[in-house]
């Protein structure tokens, strides 16, 4: 077995970057955080949204997790050891870690949790390469793979539908029937759907204690100063801001630009920017009508002014106009695809259309009823109209949008936004660009599949980077999606909330305190 030096290095580097403030922390206090959306489930293996992570991940921990930049680091495992043939993953577990019910976590709990995850989680595809889960002794957990998978560890660490560890007896329960018990720094108090979700500090929490590590992402040594956190779901942005100004909340997310401008002059409020919340994109249907023609797709790609589209989408929120499928700062960031991003040339779009078989057929553009989608869709529609395309916009709720875009028929373009993909990196794109359910409805792109095989078949970072560049270039060349840019989010908090740091993963209230 060879210890993964990469992981150990990543922890130290990320820890240095994420070093917390040195001010004196004060214990106690109750925080009320207002979220824009609620939970769809409290089951630790079944949730998969940003608001859910904010509420669930303070309570639950996993073997591996991600750092401040989305890199993979150990959490409940001391480290990950990968055999030379890439088929055996061994995880020495941290000793003395306690569940919220007081029981010590052992490999039996980890095994039962992973088996449950592989059975019921929406993210269970991560476990497809697994041949067996084994618990050879109390503090060692082993995963054996059928075939090597270089991104297996990243998938295991992913906080989207996280592979959390729960007590063995809890793992026997059905979906949504578990008792909210894990090893995290907070423990469950109550969930009143559509109203609030409350957690409190877990005084028996055993934090990671590894020399040189500091709190980073969801990992490192986490310290809780606050007594309780109550998450309330307030869908109306104005009502969230009003509650903060009235002193009835400590932190609100998704602050609209104009409200943020007004709050700047309020000494009781501090604003936080998170420049990388999501990536607005447009899916193009490769299986139907005009957009099945690559020239038409290229014309769409060429016509849009990304600066204008992102300005409209952001409406005062922070944004970045950049081409990559990952955020700047990610280890896999490169210039691949750059030449085809933000071409912003109507004449070129017209030329491409001339060379296509497009005869003015209707292009159905389905637009979700979220603010940023409806705003950027206006800019996109106008640009395509100028280029000579007959675009019909249908605005609909997200349930309808997802349902329609999941089929080959009845749409050509669809608004969307990638949330965790650009943060966590390349492996998150594999599922959505290949296989029968790929989001572009593309059939049999062997070149892309070969590039993914190359990416997944190596642990050599240089080869991996080259494969990722190839994947990026291919998706740009074939116009799988049109990326508009990186869209951020603003938070506002009471000015005496110290230690809070915005994070693309979710909200975090450990290592934060009320002054």
């Amino acid at each position, binding site marked *: 077995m060879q210890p993964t030096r990469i992981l150990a290095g990543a922890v130290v580097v990320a820890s240095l970057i994420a070093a917390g403030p040195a001010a004196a922390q004060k214990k106690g206090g109750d925080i009320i955080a207002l979220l824009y959306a*609620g939970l*769809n*489930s*409290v*089951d630790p293996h079944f949730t*998969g*949204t940003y608001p859910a992570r904010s509420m669930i991940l303070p309570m639950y921990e996993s073997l591996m997790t991600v750092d401040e930049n989305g890199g993979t680091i150990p959490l409940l495992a001391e480290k990950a050891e990968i055999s030379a043939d890439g088929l055996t993953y061994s995880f020495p577990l941290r000793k003395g870690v306690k569940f919220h019910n007081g029981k010590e976590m052992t490999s039996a709990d980890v095994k039962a949790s992973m088996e449950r995850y592989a059975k019921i989680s*929406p993210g*269970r*595809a991560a476990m497809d390469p697994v041949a067996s889960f084994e618990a050879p002794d109390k503090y060692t957990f082993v995963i054996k793979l059928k075939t090597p998978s270089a991104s297996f560890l990243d998938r295991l660490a992913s906080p989207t539908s996280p592979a959390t560890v729960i007590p063995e007896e809890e793992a026997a329960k059905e*979906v*949504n*029937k578990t008792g909210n018990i894990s090893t995290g720094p907070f423990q469950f108090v109550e969930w*009143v*759907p*559509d*109203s*609030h979700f409350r957690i409190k500090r877990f005084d028996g929490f055993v934090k990671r204690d590894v020399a040189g590590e500091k709190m980073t992402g969801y990992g490192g040594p986490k310290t809780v100063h606050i007594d309780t956190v109550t998450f*309330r*779901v*307030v*869908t*109306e942005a*104005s*009502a969230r801001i*009003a*509650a903060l*100004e*009235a*002193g*009835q*909340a400590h932190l609100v997310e998704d602050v609209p630009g104009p409200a943020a401008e007004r709050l700047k002059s309020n000494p009781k409020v501090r604003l936080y920017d998170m420049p990388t919340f999501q990536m607005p994109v447009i899916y193009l249907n490769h299986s139907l009508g005009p957009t099945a023609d690559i020239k038409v797709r290229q014309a769409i790609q060429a016509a849009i002014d990304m600066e204008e589209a992102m300005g409209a989408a952001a409406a005062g929120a922070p944004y970045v106009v950049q081409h990559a499928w990952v955020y700047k700062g990610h280890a896999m960031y490169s210039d691949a695809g750059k030449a085809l991003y933000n071409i912003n040339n109507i004449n070129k779009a017209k030329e491409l259309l001339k060379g296509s078989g497009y005869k003015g057929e209707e292009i159905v553009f389905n637009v979700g009823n979220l603010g940023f989608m409806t705003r950027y869709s206006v800019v996109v529609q106008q640009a395509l109209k100028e280029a000579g395309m007959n675009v019909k916009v249908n605005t*609909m*709720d*997200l*349930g*309808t949008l*997802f*349902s*329609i*875009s*999941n089929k080959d028929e009845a749409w050509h373009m669809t608004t*969307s936004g990638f949330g965790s993909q650009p943060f966590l990196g390349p492996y998150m794109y594999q*599922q*959505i660009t290949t*296989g*029968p*359910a790929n*989001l572009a409805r593309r059939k049999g792109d062997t070149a892309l599949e070969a590039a993914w095989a190359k990416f997944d078949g190596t642990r050599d970072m240089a080869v991996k980077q080259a494969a990722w560049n190839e994947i990026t270039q291919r998706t740009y060349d074939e116009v799988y999606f049109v990326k508009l840019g990186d869209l951020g989010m603003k938070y506002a908090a009471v000015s005496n909330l110290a230690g809070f740091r915005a994070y693309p993963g979710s909200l975090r209230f450990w290592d934060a305190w009320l002054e």
Partner: protein
Amino acid sequence: MGRYLAGRLLSTLIVLIIVSFISFCIMQMVPGDPALVMAGAAAPADEVQRIREQFGLDQPFHVQMLRWYAGMLQGDLGQSITLGRSVVTAIVERLPSTIALAFLSFLITLVFGIVAGVAAALKQDSWIDHTIMTVAVIGVSVPSFWIGLIMIIGFAVMVDWLPAGGYVTIAESPALWFKSLVLPSIALALLQMGLLARITRASMIEVLRQDFVRTAQAKGLPRWIVVGKHAFMNVMIPVVTVIGIVFSLLLSGSVVIETVFSIPGLGRLMATSIVTRDYPVIQGALLITAAMFVLINLAVDVLYAYLDPRIHYD
């Protein structure tokens, strides 16, 4: 009266069966897949299929419907797809806040709507009448979510008298429970108040012109007895009809107000369930709401007989 009530209750049952059938059909026609919403747009197809099978969504329409009716007859409205609890539990958890909100709004509507309508009628064409009717028109015209937000800014942010949102149960603190309901109740009541004030005014003006009112005045009865006893009881027949409608509108209006004020009630449950396509919850919540509508109408009809001795149902 007994036979009449029995007949009406039977027709209520038929109405509820028809309502649930129509809502079932509408949900089948609306695009959207709860399994896809739950698993996420990027979930693998087999996972989406697994969720469909788990909740019986892969079954043909008639099988799903028959299963639902069979459950309903046993008091089981099914299992929520997203909330991890039964539909009955989800509804029972939220009914107290919606009923409290509706009743408080109803009380405000009744007191202020009727008093304003009577005052406007008695001072017809005076500045009092014009002022009341102007406010009533504004109340009817302005959307309740906008009124709600303005009230939050005024009473929660600027003067900090009342909470900006959220709901406290009466068991936790009766005082905080009341405070949490004041702003949403007023916001919800404003529209209905305007409606009731206008109807009351028109009815009162008409009744005051009747011969029996003139006779009462000619007998030398004090004005408050003429208005409060003789005229008012006659005004109540059309007003009670409107009150029935008002209560129904308060229930439907709670969808918006509960969202603005973050109250975990039946309206918000329905709004959330529609977004997540939680079919069993939508179906159950619609059934309960329809039952309330029908029963309120029944209560109004029974009230007619009490208010007007000429009305008999036998």
